[in-house]
């Protein structure tokens, strides 16, 4: 094993690097974001502008995070139901769930965002706020992915575990409530965190339809002062930090679960 390595030695080196990055997160990370946003804007703006623009950026950041959390929770709820339907197929509903999942997994997210806001919801006579309609489409889109993950978790449950649940005299609903869902959920946590990262990255697409989240907030600023490169790098850094922290978290969870 002297010539090539199959990841062992690099895995030994990596934890230090990861800890170095990960240890910055909790309190220091928040302060760091503040300093970074205020400081980097301060390079090319007057104090009043810095205050205004950094509040805008921070509001955008909070909106992004809130958006991600809300759509993850609602998507997870819908996804759990759909995944269960698809894997169990009660009364033939599994086919409908499968069709739903395949449909939403094979169209791009922006198409869905535009379709929801300008096509589908107005057709139903609803004219919601752009934030509401994009949250709705995120919920639909991500629930398809979450459903596949939950279905994988349910399929990984061994026959004997189900038989044990039946043997205990649990009703079908109780089997799911007490045995299958907790196990499936626990096993799919790493995949769910990975999907959460993808979701967080996808929230930047909501800026295209006009939700003023982190990407759009920066865009508003650099459309005025023409410092594109600096602000884009700042945004990239902030996104990177959040997603990298989450992906380290998912690696750790993977180790804990397995």
């Amino acid at each position, binding site marked *: 094993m002297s010539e090539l390595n*199959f990841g062992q030695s690099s895995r030994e080196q990596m934890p230090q690097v990861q800890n170095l990055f990960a240890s910055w997160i909790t309190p220091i990370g928040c302060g760091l974001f503040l300093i970074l946003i205020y400081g980097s804007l301060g390079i090319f703006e007057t104090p009043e502008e810095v205050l205004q623009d950094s509040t805008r950026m921070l509001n955008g950041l909070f909106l992004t995070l809130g958006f991600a959390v809300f759509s993850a929770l609602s998507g997870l709820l819908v996804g759990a139901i759909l995944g269960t339907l698809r894997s169990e197929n009660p009364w033939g509903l599994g086919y409908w769930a499968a069709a739903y999942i395949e449909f939403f997994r094979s169209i*791009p997210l922006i*198409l869905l965002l535009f379709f929801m806001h300008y096509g589908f919801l107005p057709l139903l006579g609803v004219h919601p706020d752009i934030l509401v309609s994009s949250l709705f489409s995120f919920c639909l889109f991500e629930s398809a992915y979450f459903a596949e993950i939950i279905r994988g978790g349910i399929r990984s449950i061994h026959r004997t575990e189900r038989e044990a649940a039946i043997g205990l005299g649990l009703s079908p609903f109780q089997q799911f409530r007490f045995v299958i869902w907790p196990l499936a959920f626990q096993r799919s946590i790493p995949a769910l965190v990975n999907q959460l990262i993808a979701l967080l990255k996808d929230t930047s697409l909501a800026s295209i339809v006009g939700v003023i989240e982190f990407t759009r907030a920066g865009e508003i600023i650099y459309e005025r002062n*023409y410092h594109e490169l600096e602000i884009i*790098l700042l945004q*990239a850094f902030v*996104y990177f930090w959040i997603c990298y922290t989450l992906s380290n978290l998912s690696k750790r969870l993977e180790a804990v679960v397995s």
Partner: protein
Amino acid sequence: VILSGLGKTIYISVVSMGMALGLGFVFAYFRLLPNRFLNRLAFSYVELFRNIPLLIQLYFFYRGLPAVGIQLPPEMCGIIGLSLYSGAYMTEIIRSALLALPKEQLETGLCLGMSPFETYRLILIPQSVPVMIPAMTNQCINLMKNSSLLFYITVEELFHVVYQGAVDGFRPVEYFLIGAVLYMGLSWCIAGVFYLLESLFEKVLVPRWFQWQFSSPSLIRDAGDISQ
């Protein structure tokens, strides 16, 4: 008009798929090497491009770079951004497929006096290709879907055409449904092509590859016989 957009989407997806695959193989090889610098380079490449949203990367190429004097045509920005973004995912896919191989494969190759690159090219990659294809299918479908983001940097691909049609004709529902159907068709095509490729690789190409590579009279002939 929609067909031209479809053609553009296919063109962009295929080109960036090829580039992403190339990047993936190169950086997966770097991850395998004991060289610390290349290892770190590949690691940072993967983590950097996987953890930044594609939209921000596209903005960087399309709006950030002109600020320092590098102006690329939008289509090229899109292709570069897409291939770098998907290349990071490809690297991880190829690397995990390689890690799934037994270590003896590598050791045999090195014992036979092959260089690390020869081992990688002749022994490791051909065996792990069938393993990595399902994950690659997903990634390529994602790439094709992500190419719709290029509409925002003024590339006239499928979604751009659909969006223009919806705006000009005041018929959003019809146009967006057509777009959805076309994107679904494209992803099914990709899935089908990769399914065929998988069976092709598994049954025909990989065994032939070993026969062809190891048919020359040399020391490594024995390795060829073993692996069949």
